[in-house]
């Protein structure tokens, strides 16, 4: 298992050919109280750096981008009723799992990401 971050503030935990994806603690702090997560659709394919889903706070909507290209195989339905879990523990509240074939260039290690956003 290894952990990567995208410049656009998503984390991806890699397990074989499956990436579990969420948003960074820094991102949740910037967004403020999250009130709704429009979860991706299982079966859809996404591009690396392409649109994945939307996260809403009271007065803003933010796009979340896919850190890897592939197919959505599972979504965290728990977030439908409890979007606040992202605020409480961003690293623990995963949004979806993406089945991918290759890791794209440009992903950051946790250390690099934290350095960029400190």
């Amino acid at each position, binding site marked *: 298992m290894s952990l990567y971050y995208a410049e656009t503030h998503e984390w991806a935990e890699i397990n074989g050919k499956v990436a579990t994806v969420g948003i960074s603690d820094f991102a949740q702090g910037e967004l403020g109280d999250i009130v*709704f997560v429009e979860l991706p659709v299982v079966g859809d394919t996404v591009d690396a750096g392409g649109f994945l889903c939307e996260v*809403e*706070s*009271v*007065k*803003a909507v933010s796009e979340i981008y896919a850190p890897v290209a592939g197919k959505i195989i599972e979504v965290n339905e728990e977030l439908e009723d409890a979007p606040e879990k992202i605020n409480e523990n961003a690293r623990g509240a995963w949004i979806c799992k993406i089945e991918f074939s290759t890791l794209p260039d440009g992903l950051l290690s946790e250390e690099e990401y934290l350095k960029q956003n400190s």
Partner: protein
Amino acid sequence: MSHYVPHTEADIKAMLKDIGVKSKTELFSDVPKKLLLKELNIPEGITQQEVLEFMQKLADANTVYDVVLRGAGSYKHFLPSTVKNLSSRAEFVTAYTPYQAEISQGILQVIFEYQTMICNLTGMEVSNASVYNGASAAAEAILMCKERNKSKVIILGDIRPDTKSTIITYTEDQGLEILDIPLDKDLKGLKEALDDQVACVYVEQPGYLGNVIDAKEVGDIVKGSGAKYIMGCNPISLAILKSPGECGADIAVGDGQPLGLPLGFGGPYLGFMACTEKMMRKIPGRIVGETVDADGKKAYVLTLQAREQHIRRERALSNICSNQALCALTVTIYLSTIGKQGLIDVANECVNLSHYFKNELSKVQGVEFLEGEFFHEFVTITPGKVDAILSELNKVNILGGLKLDRDRILWCVTETVSKECLDFVVDLIRGVL
């Protein structure tokens, strides 16, 4: 010159001095000189007294009918005195959209009550705070059903021409194709047209020509295909007819005018929209929600705002900003005043009187009808006699039904028409024929 500027000459002088300019015109120094207008080519201002006299003359140039037997999207109902009185309270009338919840609790609560009433009437779970009118509500509802890979919209049966035209306007740029499917007896047309390309089916209950159908049967067929089911309803009929919720609708819309708003030459009315909880984040317009304040006290706020244009901008599902809030307030007061039994009574009186009228007309030789159940509107067929009937009625200050063509009239009877008057109209028609 009349105007509403409260300043004295001295006020203006003092203010100009504080700003540091010599004249008001100096404040417009950013406007290119060549663009400044010399003079507006409209009449000089007049006193309020003269305006009232002028406008009264215009009002008097319109015929106000003693009896109205015309509906077709605009319905004359009895308006209790509380409705006009309470809805003209200046605190409501002169307020803006309740963005500042702390000083807008009154308006927010009214909208919350309105949403509740619309949900209860339609049997749906979520209502917005209104849109412009029934036609735009239908168009917005169809846009709510837009989905990837689904490009067809079915309009089932006869719908109001204004609504139809508005739907076409709103959908033509969105890659949606409108299919007109007639309401045949065993819904064969509908069954054949439904495929996985159909995003939604829109049906009006009662239909444009007054007809009432088994809307649940339609709902079951639509749901089976995976398309969304939208019902456009006359809200008075919902007092007694199966609610859209009971019929399996995903969205219920309609024009709220019959619920306390005057004919007003077509507006302002309001479009009501309600949907299932599943579609909550797709419904356009303002929505009020209940929450608590910093002290834990019950409070109301505008909520789910991330759907709306001021946040989502070009990605918003709808562009609506202003709605018809004061009309929604009027509806709320109307429904509170006549209450549950009152609305049922209004609906039953409409049904009973219109069926009585049709029954009496059926005894007149030369009058034929369209078949089927109806609510308070129905069509007569009197070949070549339409103009004669309507002009005879006009002479006695009765607004007859709507002329559909040279043979057919669409009649409407509400609780404002007396039995005696209906008997009189039947006799008059007998005379014409």
